[in-house]
């Protein structure tokens, strides 16, 4: 008979960089589940283990320094702990930096949660010659204290034992609490008594905790209590007590509570920790004295960024080619087996092209996030921000904005996803909005075509560099504009821990990488596919039967015309077919849109045909080139670039100012469907996405207009 095991829900709470995630991995082995916390784009990690006849579910909460929450991640952790959503809370503390860690512990003690403290990195503690009196510490914080080392996998079983003992309420340690100054304690006691009379509240939250938070003027506690009947009494008491506590003129109650917590942490460390007499330089100190010093700091930083970029895009190129040829093969077989017509067209040009366009980015995303998780895991990421912050702070962004912006030169999709490392919403949105101005790889074919057709070969390199630079300058200008207007004041203060260098676990990196790639495939796949089909439909409907008939009869005439030599016929037929496609495109919805927007794009030197190409380019920037070859009657293939260049040179619309204007427009206008979809996903608000589309369109139009007019004057 199989008896269903009782489940114990355990939450891991602790400072960032306390080794919480490695402990999580050590506890749960490979049995983990990754999801999302409801309502926010914060990943939720759950692990499962069987121990001592129980099934143990472990939730890894985002790292926090205290219960003050600033970011969505921190709010998730705070709410989880506050609402006591687990049976046991394991507080992971860094044994080598106990004083700071115990500050959070003191708050967890206030919450009266069933607590086990895991002193992590115990191997390093011993290695550095630090002595911790665990028994005494246990007495002081009033809960089980277990030395563990997640890396060396020691103390894991002991931790499980203690979790179960706490769950079974076989607690051997006397409860203790953070002792605040007397005035505060009396206030807390009185308020707790009132809160206890509200069973609904006191059943869910700790009365002591809520009382303390009220004295700290915490908004969350206030919102929770102000609607309750007890507030009439409680609010009055709180007000009166606050007046009493603050009567000495020595500052707010909040500051006093914080000071007492620190005093507690400091005292506990003084009583239990013996540091080695001599402070040796750690490995971290030695590495840092090289990688972030005054001379090597910036070159090394640039080197790392270069390496990341190379890895993402150079290493990703081969698998991208495999994926592309795999989809080419699929299309070829579809062409072979499905008779020509709308059905084939929707499968080949709509669905396969759309799905292929999505999947092709997967190698880039995997590689970028492999690199990013590695940098994050080792501890260099914080240092990169440290090195770059001054420059980025000047243009209104954050040191951490650098990585997404560099990535943007390759592809906006992973770059926008990389913005998650920016915790502040204003910083993140401002960075996201300027990323597409960093010219991505897909725009390159357009530049190469236009530069190749109209500018001397010698200056091609300089011209390309100028285009990229122009994009960067527009990005900087836009960032400054955003941060001084709509995102004014919304900036993350640069207060950041530089964690000790560590070798990240292999599993951690793989999991991180996989989550990002899967999220991309799942969320973007559906939307991008739908959008690709829509753009396909716009370019293929309505079908004008009259045009088809005209060209079919012309083709027939060629076939039956004996005056034309047989080996000339295929070329003639192709050109007739190309003309037909061009005519159809002209009369399609895309063609109508192109003609419809002609008045708007005329000031930029464009005609409706360029308009159609730009509209089609919203699906993917490379499509600008293939659409141009269709509309300028060269067939759908973009292989024949020399012929296309020749054709463009003969066309009156392509004056030098118009060419430059088009390059600028392509550089700046709304990015491809994939990037826009990801933007929306990451920004999370339709309002912001719409604003962003409008903003990039307006910027592109304005800049192209200025360039067009300026070069017109210059040339004449």
């Amino acid at each position: 008979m199989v008896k269903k095991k009782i489940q114990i829900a355990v939450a891991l709470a602790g400072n960032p960089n306390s080794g919480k995630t490695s402990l999580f991995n050590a506890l749960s082995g490979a049995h983990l589940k990754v999801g999302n916390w409801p309502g926010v784009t914060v990943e939720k990690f759950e692990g499962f283990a069987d121990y001592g006849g129980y099934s143990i579910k472990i939730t890894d909460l985002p790292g926090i320094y205290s219960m003050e929450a600033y970011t969505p991640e921190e709010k998730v952790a705070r709410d989880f702990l506050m609402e006591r959503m687990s049976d046991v809370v394991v507080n992971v503390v860094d044994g080598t930096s106990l004083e700071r860690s115990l500050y959070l512990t003191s708050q967890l003690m206030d919450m009266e949660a069933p607590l086990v403290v895991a002193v992590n990195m115990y191997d390093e503690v011993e290695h550095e010659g630090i002595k911790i009196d665990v028994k005494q510490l246990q007495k002081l914080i009033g809960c089980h204290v277990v030395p563990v080392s997640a890396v060396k996998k020691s103390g894991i079983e002991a931790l499980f034992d203690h979790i179960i003992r706490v769950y079974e309420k076989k607690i051997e340690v006397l409860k203790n609490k953070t002792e605040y100054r007397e005035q505060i304690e009396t206030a807390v006691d009185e308020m707790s008594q009132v809160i206890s009379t509200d069973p609904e509240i006191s059943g869910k939250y700790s009365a002591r905790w809520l009382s303390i938070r009220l004295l700290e003027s915490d908004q969350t506690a206030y919102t929770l209590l102000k609607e309750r009947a007890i507030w009439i009494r409680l609010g009055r008491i709180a007000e009166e007590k606050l007046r009493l506590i603050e009567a000495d003129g020595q500052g707010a109650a909040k500051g006093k509570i914080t000071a007492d917590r620190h005093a507690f942490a400091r005292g506990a460390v003084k009583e239990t920790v013996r540091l080695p007499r001599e402070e040796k330089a750690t490995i971290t100190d030695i590495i840092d004295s090289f990688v972030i010093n005054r001379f090597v700091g910036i070159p090394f930083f640039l080197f790392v960024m270069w390496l990341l970029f190379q890895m993402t895009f150079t290493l990703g190129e081969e698998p991208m080619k495999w994926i592309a040829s795999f989809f080419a093969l699929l299309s070829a077989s579809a062409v072979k087996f499905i008779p020509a017509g709308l059905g084939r067209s929707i499968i080949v040009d709509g669905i396969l092209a759309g799905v292929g366009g999505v999947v092709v980015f997967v190698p880039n995303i995997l590689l970028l996030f492999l690199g990013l998780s590695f940098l994050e895991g080792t501890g260099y990421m914080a240092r990169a921000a440290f090195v770059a912050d001054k420059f980025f702070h000047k243009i209104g962004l954050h040191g951490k904005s650098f990585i997404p912006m560099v990535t943007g030169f390759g592809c906006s999709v992973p770059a926008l996803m990389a913005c998650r490392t920016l915790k502040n919403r204003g910083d993140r949105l401002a960075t996201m909005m300027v990323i597409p101005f960093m010219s991505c790889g897909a725009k390159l074919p357009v530049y190469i075509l236009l530069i190749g057709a109209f500018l001397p070969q010698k200056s091609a390199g300089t011209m390309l560099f100028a285009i990229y630079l122009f994009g960067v300058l527009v990005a900087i200008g836009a960032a400054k504009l955003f941060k001084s207007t709509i995102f004014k004041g919304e900036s993350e203060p640069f207060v950041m821990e530089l964690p000790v260098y560590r070798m990240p676990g292999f599993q951690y990196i793989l999991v991180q990488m996989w989550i990002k790639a899967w999220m991309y495939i799942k969320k973007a796949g559906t939307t991008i596919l739908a959008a690709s089909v829509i753009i396909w439909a716009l370019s293929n409907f309505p079908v004008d039967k009259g045009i088809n008939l005209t060209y079919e009869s012309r083709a027939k005439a060629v076939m039956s015309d004996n005056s034309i030599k047989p080996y000339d016929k295929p070329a003639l037929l192709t050109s007739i077919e190309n003309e037909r496609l061009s005519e159809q495109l002209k009369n399609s919805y895309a063609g109508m849109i192109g003609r419809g927007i002609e008045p708007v794009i005329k000031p930029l030197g464009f005609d409706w045909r360029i308009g159609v190409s730009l509209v089609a380019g919203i699906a993917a920037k490379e499509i600008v080139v293939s659409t141009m070859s269709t509309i300028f009657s060269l067939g759908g293939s973009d292989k024949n670039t020399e012929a296309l260049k020749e054709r463009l040179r003969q066309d009156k619309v392509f004056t030098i100012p118009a060419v430059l204007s088009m390059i600028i427009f392509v550089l700046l206008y709304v990015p491809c469907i994939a990037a826009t979809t990801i933007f929306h996903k990451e920004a999370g608000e339709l309002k912001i996405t719409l604003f962003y589309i409008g903003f990039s369109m307006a910027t592109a139009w304005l800049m192209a207009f200025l360039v067009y007019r300026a070069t017109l004057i210059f040339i004449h």
Partner: protein
Amino acid sequence: MKMSELKSGDRAEVLSIVQGTEVARRLADMGLTMGARFKVIRKAPLGDPMEIKIDRFLLALRLEEAGQIEVKLLEKPARAVKVKQNG
């Protein structure tokens, strides 16, 4: 003196921090409160932010934020004194 005026290698103690800002709260969460002792490790290659060591961990903050922290200089590094004498 202000924390932002310290040079690398200096050891100092926090006297007071301008209260009521998010920065102050964050710093308090990380252990930088009245009476905390720390050592300035370095400034970033571009001169800002600065890096300090407090309770065996490393913390980076911008000079702008460090300007809101009043400190008492405890000890200058031996090396820096020597350089001064030579110059």
